[in-house]
């Protein structure tokens, strides 16, 4: 084999190596994306679970025992759980989830990844702002953020939000 043939062979091998590396990289990227989607679905489900749970509770501490509130000023001004409500299952009203956080690492039923769940609850006024308002209204918004080291190496956050309005009928 002369020098020219040797160079062509080396060039071909380099080309082949580049092709193989690119194919492998694409394959890994696809797999990673698929896995991440799976974790995102799970993150959405966990966030949804918290929101659904919060919605099953009373709108406010003042309405927790089927009390009827006739004035917005009768509602709780300070949002958060009351003393004695240490665990999530002790929460009895919607805004108890304000500043609630949880890591799923201790939950043996979640075997794939660990997620951090953080909640915030705000008063909102549809006529003023859906972000938050400082005064008491009949509308509260819960915002649940779910993060995980498995979601784009911890850089992505799944954020879910829903507004709960106080109503009484019949």
């Amino acid at each position: 084999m002369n020098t020219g043939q040797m160079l062509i062979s080396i060039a071909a091998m380099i080309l082949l190596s580049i092709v193989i590396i690119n194919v492998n990289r694409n394959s890994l990227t696809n797999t990673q994306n698929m896995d991440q989607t799976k974790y995102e679905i799970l993150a959405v489900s966990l966030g949804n679970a918290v929101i659904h749970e919060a919605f099953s509770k009373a709108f406010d501490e003042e309405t927790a025992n089927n009390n009827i509130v006739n004035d917005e000023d009768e509602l709780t001004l300070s949002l958060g759980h009351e003393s004695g409500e240490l665990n999530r299952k002790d929460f009895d009203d919607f805004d108890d989830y304000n500043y609630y956080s949880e890591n799923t690492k201790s939950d043996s039923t979640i075997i794939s990844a660990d997620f951090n769940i953080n909640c915030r609850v705000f008063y909102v006024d549809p006529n003023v702002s859906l972000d938050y308002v400082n005064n008491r209204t009949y509308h509260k918004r819960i915002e649940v953020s779910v993060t995980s080291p498995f979601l784009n190496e911890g850089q992505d956050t799944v954020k879910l939000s829903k507004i709960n309005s106080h109503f009484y009928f019949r």
Partner: protein
Amino acid sequence: MGFSTLIDILGSSLVGGLILLILFRMNDSTVENSYLNSGEMIVQSNLLSIIELLEHDFRKIGYCEDYDKIPNPATAIIEATDTSISFKTDVAIDEDVQTGDGNVDILKYWVGSPTDSEVAGTPNPKDRILYRQVNSETPLAANLGLTQFNLKYFDDDGEEIHTMPSAPPLGIITLQIDVTVENTASYGDAADEDVYSKDKSAFWRQIRLSAPGLSIR
């Protein structure tokens, strides 16, 4: 033909063979990955389909277009076990008109067994059918690769209800649904259940669902 030429031919054949082997392996790997990714996507979309259906129906527990016909939504859940549930609702008139017709319907969900004849032919030995029945109509069923469908029930205090009352109201305020979906027929199947498939890709989703009708506060 000289000896060096023979060596050249043998050497180039060897190198060419190795390159061919690499290309075959690469092709095989690409095909496998393509199947695995497709399988993953099927599993994920199947799971979402199941969840969408369950969320749609379960959040309407105790709902009736004519609300006088279910005066006490707390009695809407008629029967509840860890793999089945039966409740009063008002099933949507059709896909376009999602409100009910004003008549109370009984909607029942339950899960079949992995040994049922409907799933006996699938390569996955663990998949089972999720049934949905409206009143006494023929149950509708779809094999979306469901391998787990567990229900847990919680009372007003958030405590799990282990023993159901014999008749409504059952005291259920929220329920938790655990769903696992696997591929019914995936790439690289094996007879051994433990190594059933490379893209077994089972994952579950948990919802603590609270139907608005069950807790009016």
